[in-house]
């Protein structure tokens, strides 16, 4: 067993875990943050995307032990004090989701894209979310949501935890 200390959505947790425990399972099963989803076993689908120390990562391919001492943000931590993050708001306005299963990972990936590139072209958006599969939407409303979020974030500063 290994002792880790991880700060998730602003709260620091001390846990004792098996070395092979995946970060996504740590978040879901140990901390009870079930917003991050598992959609595959080959790191393809992106449903498990979270931020670790400001970088979007696929938490199914990160060991919880690797997050020792790190700061993690999950979908549950994106809305600041009850106010939706502009990316969440944009996905809502543009019907960028249907079943919602890929959505947390898609939103986290989008937040990263816009952090790095505040004014992405359609092509840049589509390449930016290549690591996130969606079977419901056909991606078009997602692209529109990302474009809308970019506009929103340019006119208002994004919350500190994104």
């Amino acid at each position, binding site marked *: 067993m290994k002792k880790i200390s991880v700060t998730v959505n602003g709260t620091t947790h001390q846990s004792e875990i098996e070395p092979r425990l995946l970060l996504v399972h740590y978040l879901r099963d140990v901390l009870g943050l079930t917003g991050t989803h598992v*959609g595959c*076993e080959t790191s393809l689908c992106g449903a498990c995307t979270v931020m670790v120390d400001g970088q979007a990562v696929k938490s199914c391919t990160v060991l919880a032990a690797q997050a020792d001492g790190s700061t993690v943000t999950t979908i549950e931590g994106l809305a600041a004090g009850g106010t939706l993050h502009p990316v969440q708001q944009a996905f809502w306005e543009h019907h960028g989701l249907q079943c919602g299963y890929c959505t947390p990972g898609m939103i986290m990936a989008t937040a990263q894209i816009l952090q790095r590139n505040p004014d992405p072209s359609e092509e840049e958006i589509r390449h930016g979310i290549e690591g*996130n599969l969606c079977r419901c939407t*056909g991606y078009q409303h997602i692209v529109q949501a990302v474009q809308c979020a970019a506009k929103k974030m340019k006119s208002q500063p994004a919350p500190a935890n994104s």
Partner: protein
Amino acid sequence: MAEKVVGKGIKRTEDPRLIQGLAHYVDDIKLPDTLHAVFVRSIYAHARIKKVDVAAAQKTPGVVAVYTGNDISQKIGPVPCGAAIPDMKQPDHRVLATDKVYWVGHPIAVVFAENKYIARDAADKIEVDYEELPVVLDEEKAADPKSPVIHEKIGSNIAYKLTAGEGDIEAALKAADKIVRQKIYHKRLAPIAMEGRGVLARYYPGEQELTLWTSTQIPHLARTQISLMLGFPENKLRLIAPEVGGGFGSKLNVYAEEAIMAYASMQLGRPVKWIEGRRENMQGTIHGRGQVGYIEIGCKKDGTITGFRYNVFADMGSYFQLLTPAIPTLTGLMLSGCYKIPAIQMNVTACFTNKMSTDAYRGAGRPEATYVIERAMDLVAAELGMDVVEVRRKNFPEPFGAENPFKVATGLFYDSGNYQGALDKALKMVDYTKLREEQKKARAAGRLIGVGVSTYVEICAMGPSPALPAGGWESATVRIEPTCKVTILTGASPHGQGQETSFSQIAADELGVTVNDCTVIHGDTAVVQYGIGTFGSRATAVGGTAVYLALQKLKVKATGMAAHMLGVDAKTVTFDDGKFTSGGKSVTIQEVALNAHLAKNLPADMEPGLSATTFFEPKNFTFPFGTHICVVEIDPETGEIQIQRYIAVDDCGKVINPLLVHGQIHGGIVQSLGQALFEEVVYDEQGQLISGSLMDYAVPKAAQVPWMELDRTETPSPVNPMGVKGVGEAGSIGATPAIVAAVVDALAHLGVRHLDMPIKPEHVWNILKKNKAGAA
């Protein structure tokens, strides 16, 4: 005056929980003391099981139980098939394999342990001795009597043979000036809902209550079937579809794993949970399509179609799941497409193979029909040197509706349609004449531009009960609570389609309340009256109609109460914008709702309360239709296919929420794109599933999807009062032929008339290479 919300693209009421990661899919529901289940599945496609050694697994600390086929196969009823085809041979489908395995992924044993890591460790220790048997993989070869037989008790691999269609096909083909023939493959596809299957079962022995949370599209139907499989009273089995992460037909089913978890929770006295992994999903969740067919289409020199025959071998897989044998019959129903075809015949030979079962996957038999008739029309056009649009127009019926439904030679009466209208709109959007001129110029300059046109019609809003195994009606209960909040209980089971919003829109307009005043409850068999579920593009057309009709019942009752409160005759009362008015006096629906429950001032002959239940039986299917146009350019060096433009004009009758409609069409088109260019379930010659992960099975990614330009026509359906046709599958039916046609068209000047799906760049490159070599 409040604005009407039906017809508006308002934001969904579902979304707040989904965008914050606060929803509850099956794996998000945590019960104390839950055991986790991991299955051991066959690694051979066809083999005898000599021995299953579970001793090491059983001894693993943290393992509570291990079941094999010998333990439970006779204790649980067979996995059900709801479809009955005359003279069909149905194998006995037990929940776990006993003496033989029939496909890679066939479950053999299941381990229950304290957590999923221990369960997986223990499952890896289970040793199975197999004796390999020859495999049957090709649905056409399976029918050959020389082929090895999969189900010994049946003695043949032929599940059934069926002939369907009307008219004298032989005479029709004889009367043709030309007959065009083509072999067509519909490769197997994997539905790949982003959430795989999952089951959580809990039994309370004191109350004798069994609760099953399962990622399903058909909560009530599944409850009935699982209660029968277990011999457990249906009215003490509560089945809940929680948040469901996509289905596309793959969860319109009853799976062995659901019954096994229910059984285990009762035996082991603890909740049990099974969550499917992706590889498991690709092996053990139903596949779609799987047909190899031969088309024969007869035409006159002027392009008039005289007759159409489709001889097809349908790949059942090794066992039937819920609707497996029925899917090809849906193909037969839609072989006429948008055209007047005097004689149609389909001859199906349905065969068992050593693969996972096929069943309903978005479109369920109708993409196959639309694909073959649209390819056939293009082949006729090529044969006659006609434009693909002109040959279609030549065979369209005049616009039709309730007074003059369009009867086709598959036996159906289409409800309403205006195929010319959708076609003209699409041609205008793409500026078709100019496009063909540009194509000519581009071709002369050595560029490979192709234009594909698909005019489709499809059958949905499943459907009149005589045609559906478990009934095709849908239910709704609408309650107006004392505080005038509205509760809608629907038998539909949405998993992304947005009916929590669209049904609230309907109720808001009918009752003069707001969308936020309404809540839609679905998926819980203890709360919602019996319903049929969500599939076959039926939730709004059938389920929404039930809601609408229940609302009308409520309005009648509420009007009677209001009249009494106003002291007037009910006939003098008008209801508008939430107010009942007569002779200058009015009461609000809020006042009526409170009065209905306090019951201080009700007519003597009227019951208190404001609740209405409707079971709506549709008299016909509905027939959405449209035109899709795809423009591609092929890279002459690599064979890569780029979609330059994609236009879709779809008619789904009346639209409740255009945002939701667009979302369904986008999603369907992209699944068609997957079928046309990327996706294929591949078993190798030993029956190994080599496309068994998302690394190998190419679900379209965002960067591979073109911008889709959508428009619509609106031809109301006479089948239901709102005029809704349904739209969930249209994109996955209408788009595939347009995309394939475009690629074929880009290579038409090289003599290419047809290409098999998925059309890979390598295949196109080989054609280009051969052509260059020929020319050199």
